[in-house]
């Protein structure tokens, strides 16, 4: 019994670690994209150092079926299509990434008058695997050459804690046919406002994680990839829930210490705190299902589309969702996994039992 218990606890620890890592990786990706957005805004946004060069920074672009992490448009005209990869596995495992990036470089953006707009594809990869990424993309590009493909710039990045604050250091390697940014890029006149001299020539260049970058992660807590459910609960569902309680709900919470709120996913998405964010309903639905599993919500019987009764109590609010939810969710997942394994064993035993012992 004790052995079984310790086995269960070790599985829970392992699963909790996995869930926390997924949360942290997603948060790190949001921070990187937000830092890039803040850097672009600081330099060329409407209130930037040289205002008006950048016309748009889209965090949730859709190009047909493609969903890059950001698209920055400049008045030059010039477009950067950006993608972030924490790792870029070598060999067959990385082929999906290669295909995705080549598809971005095949995009032919057009001006309103029909003229083509110069495009660069910027791939931000952790410095552990930027070399592998450059090699894999170079090989694929040579193998399936296509005319008019946009340059692909691969930049390695790493988080850098310096005495004067926290930075993302960026490193460009001159290997495997890694491209430079097209010229002209952010400004018509080449000079200081050239991405090559700002990001590629300094070795390494750096983007600061400052208040504007951190604030951008709060205004836009998601990127163009599906977040882990724990992250969605903490960053989307809870803020929306806080927004949607009525005055009498809040009075009840203060007096009784608990309140139950019945909400559908579309109500959650209509919360003012999420205004302007195009969050797919699927993300919220998955988060609500996970909340149901850990006992924070339960589905109202027979409701279609599903409606959930969410419990808010002062005791649970005191907990840190980043630490508490992964463990609670992991316990549920491990129990589910063990139950499945037991029923599989049972089924196997039953089918064996049906066989005659002696023929």
């Amino acid at each position, binding site marked *: 019994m004790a052995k079984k218990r310790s086995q269960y606890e070790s599985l829970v620890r392992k699963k909790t670690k996995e869930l926390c890592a997924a949360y942290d990786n997603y*948060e790190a990706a949001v*921070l990187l994209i937000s830092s890039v957005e*803040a*850097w672009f*805004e*600081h*330099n060329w*946004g*409407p*209130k*930037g*150092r040289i205002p008006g060069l950048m016309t748009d920074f889209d965090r949730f672009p859709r190009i047909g079926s493609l969903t890059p992490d950001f698209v920055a448009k400049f008045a030059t005209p010039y477009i950067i299509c950006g993608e972030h990869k924490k790792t870029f596995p070598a060999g067959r495992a990385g082929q999906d990434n290669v295909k995705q990036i080549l598809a971005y470089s095949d995009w032919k953006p057009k001006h309103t008058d029909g003229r083509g707009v110069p495009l660069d594809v910027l791939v931000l990869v952790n410095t552990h695997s930027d070399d592998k990424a450059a090699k894999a993309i170079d090989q694929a590009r040579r193998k399936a050459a296509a005319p008019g493909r946009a340059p692909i710039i691969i930049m390695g990045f790493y988080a850098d*804690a310096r005495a004067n*604050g*926290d930075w993302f250091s960026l490193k460009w390697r001159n290997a495997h046919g890694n491209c430079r940014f097209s010229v002209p890029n952010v400004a018509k006149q080449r000079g200081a406002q050239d991405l090559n001299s700002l990001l590629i020539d300094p070795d390494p260049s750096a*983007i*600061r*994680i*400052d*208040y*504007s970058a*951190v*604030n*951008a*992660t*709060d*205004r836009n807590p998601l990127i163009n990839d599906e977040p882990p459910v724990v992250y969605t609960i*903490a*960053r989307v569902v*809870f*803020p929306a829930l*806080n*927004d949607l*309680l009525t005055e009498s709900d*809040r*009075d009840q*919470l*203060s*007096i009784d210490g608990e309140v139950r709120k019945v909400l559908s996913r579309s109500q959650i998405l209509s919360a*003012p*705190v999420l205004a302007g964010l195009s969050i797919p309903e699927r993300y919220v639905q998955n988060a609500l299902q996970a909340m149901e599993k850990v006992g924070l919500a339960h589905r109202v019987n027979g409701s279609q589309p599903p409606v959930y009764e969410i419990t*808010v109590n*002062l005791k649970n*609010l*005191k*907990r*840190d*969702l*980043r*630490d508490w939810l992964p463990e609670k969710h992991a316990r549920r997942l491990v129990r589910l996994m063990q139950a499945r394994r037991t029923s599989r064993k049972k089924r196997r035993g039953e089918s064996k039992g049906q066989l005659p012992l002696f023929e």
Partner: protein
Amino acid sequence: MSQTSDPPTLPMSAARLLRRASRDLAAGRLRLVRLYPLLLRVPLPELLRRRCAIYSVCDHAQLDYGYTVAYEKRLRPSKQNPGGRTVVGQFDLLAIGQNLCIVMSALDSEQDKHGPRLLVSRAYPHARRPFLNSGALCDVALKAAQDNAWTATCVDAIGYDRRTHKFRRDMKRQGLEYALSEMAEQARDLHRALMVFRDRSNRQRLRASLDRYGAARIYAGSAITVADEFVLPAVRQAQQNSLVFSIRRESQVAEQRMVQLRFRQRVLESPSQMRSLCHAVRKGDGLNVSTVHLNPYLQAQVLDFLSGEAIQLVVLDPQTVSLIPRSGESDKVLERVAATISRHFGESEITQEKVYTSGGQ
């Protein structure tokens, strides 16, 4: 309701009630009188209507000075009282202008805890307790002593230890400023001081305590003097910072402003110190603090389920805590979180800054 109108003054009707309490104290009919100031965001009748359910039975009547509240609170069974018990009491609410009231009670500790103090602690977000730092608390008491030509001696000082996060008291008879500087040397903030005020002929004129919430306990002397010269000036001091908190989430990112709490020392150098900051904020009821990023810097999402407001708490340098609004209106939670940090983590200088500085990278 505006928080920054004319400075509050004591109405005649309230003064009459306080004078009667002083007479009862002098005659020994009362042991002590407690005064708790509350800054109102809604009118007093609405506050009573919304919060009377915290008692099992609550009966209130309007009088010339404000309200008198009679309550009955049934307590859950405990080890000492397996059958549960009922606490009964009565206290007064003195209306001081439109957005301030003083909760006055002459009850014993047990009745006070489950009666007026419960109302004061559960009044948020419809009302809030003022909060002032220990230096301001000392200034208020010394100014009152100076104005009356009295000498102030601190006989019991309670300080909040920033390292152990616990209260520690000094029962040494000393000047208030000495008590303050001694605590500062020991990384403590003066939280409450019981003082004895004597006139030139060395006669005791007042024996009262004042804390950082501007609340007073009067053991001997005039309750009007305490209300007029201790409690109301403390409220005025606490209201001075109100304008700093009047920021909101801006639709234009370039216009966004934040509140910064700057500490004298580098108090936030390690992740464990950042965790204890989050822990300090979590002490507020209804506040959910979720860590978004920890080490080397801190970003936490703070949701206030009692007011519906949201902010983010950011530490990018070891001396500064920044609070950035996430919801439209954020003044209530900003003020509350800043007070909670000052109360449990240490006092700081509070300023308003811009999040975006053009070309700041």
